[in-house]
């Protein structure tokens, strides 16, 4: 392994070089790599998890299935795949708030949330959310939780991939699943923020 600090140009060249060698060896094709880049840049993302969470809010039986076996329940919506083989959904309530991390690397439930944001992967988040969850939520994410709420931090590792079912906000009775899904943000499914509240109807 080279010991000098690489420039970004050198790193980019190294990735190109690696890809070209693997293509020559028949391990992959340019088209296959292009397709994966497309999928993970543009197609897989938190809008998928929001669909699942919205269904859980709207349908109590589905919610129970989701909490019992998240991967199986997500498959009912055609959602699943790489890094979602063993998902576990933890439910936020008035008494318990959950937040997820991968302390050792970046484990994250790709099929429902896409790829993790940079901050999730950084050493600061990974260590501090475990040591001082309330402080990190308040100072880094502007999210204050009352002391009456227990905060549980879940560490994804091995093949388990946790994600959070946020609490359903007030004033959402009767909303359709797509309208509910629009309130469910990526950050709320990581647990660093709440779901959004619906915009109050304007007085005419």
């Amino acid at each position, binding site marked *: 392994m080279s010991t000098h600090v690489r420039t970004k140009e050198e790193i980019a*060249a190294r*990735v190109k*070089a690696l*890809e070209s060698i*693997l293509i020559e060896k028949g*391990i992959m094709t340019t088209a296959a790599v292009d397709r994966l*880049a497309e999928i*993970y840049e543009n197609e897989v993302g938190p809008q998928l998890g929001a669909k699942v969470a919205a269904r859980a809010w709207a349908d109590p039986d589905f919610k129970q299935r989701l909490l019992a076996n998240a991967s199986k329940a997500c498959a009912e919506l055609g959602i699943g795949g*790489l890094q979602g083989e063993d998902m576990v959904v933890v439910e936020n309530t008035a008494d318990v708030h959950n937040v997820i991390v991968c302390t050792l690397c970046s484990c994250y439930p790709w099929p429902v949330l896409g790829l993790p944001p940079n901050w999730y992967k950084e050493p600061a988040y990974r260590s501090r959310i475990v040591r001082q969850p309330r402080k990190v939520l308040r100072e880094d994410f502007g999210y204050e939780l009352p002391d009456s709420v227990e905060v549980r931090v879940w560490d994804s590792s091995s093949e388990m991939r946790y994600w959070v079912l946020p609490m359903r906000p007030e004033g959402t009775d009767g909303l359709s699943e797509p309208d509910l899904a629009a309130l469910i943000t990526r950050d709320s499914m990581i647990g660093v923020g709440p779901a959004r509240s619906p915009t109050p109807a304007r007085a005419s």
Partner: protein
Amino acid sequence: MAGLPGGRDGELAFTAPWELRAFAVAVAAYNNGQYEWSEFQLSLIESIRQWEQSGQDPDREPWSYYEHWLTALETVLAGSGLLSESQLDERTKAVLAIPRDASHQAAHPEPVAVDPAVR
């Protein structure tokens, strides 16, 4: 790169095209059966761990997640004998030696082809 307009870098999953490419190459190699995901994951954990433990080293590179990803990938592939570091070093040199505008040395101020209209 995916991200909200005006979003901070921290909100993105990728901050440079090579990162997305390195990601996709690793998934493609996995899809081809070159390693179990757990093997790659352990290699990634190890690369990150080494970086974190060198905290007092003034020459330590700044945090760059996808550099660990790339290191993990190279390590796993070298470990299975699929490729060697020297092979990769050589190919990298070759890539760097390609002039940036190898196929665009001269400007072309006029259209290079015209398919005339039929009126």
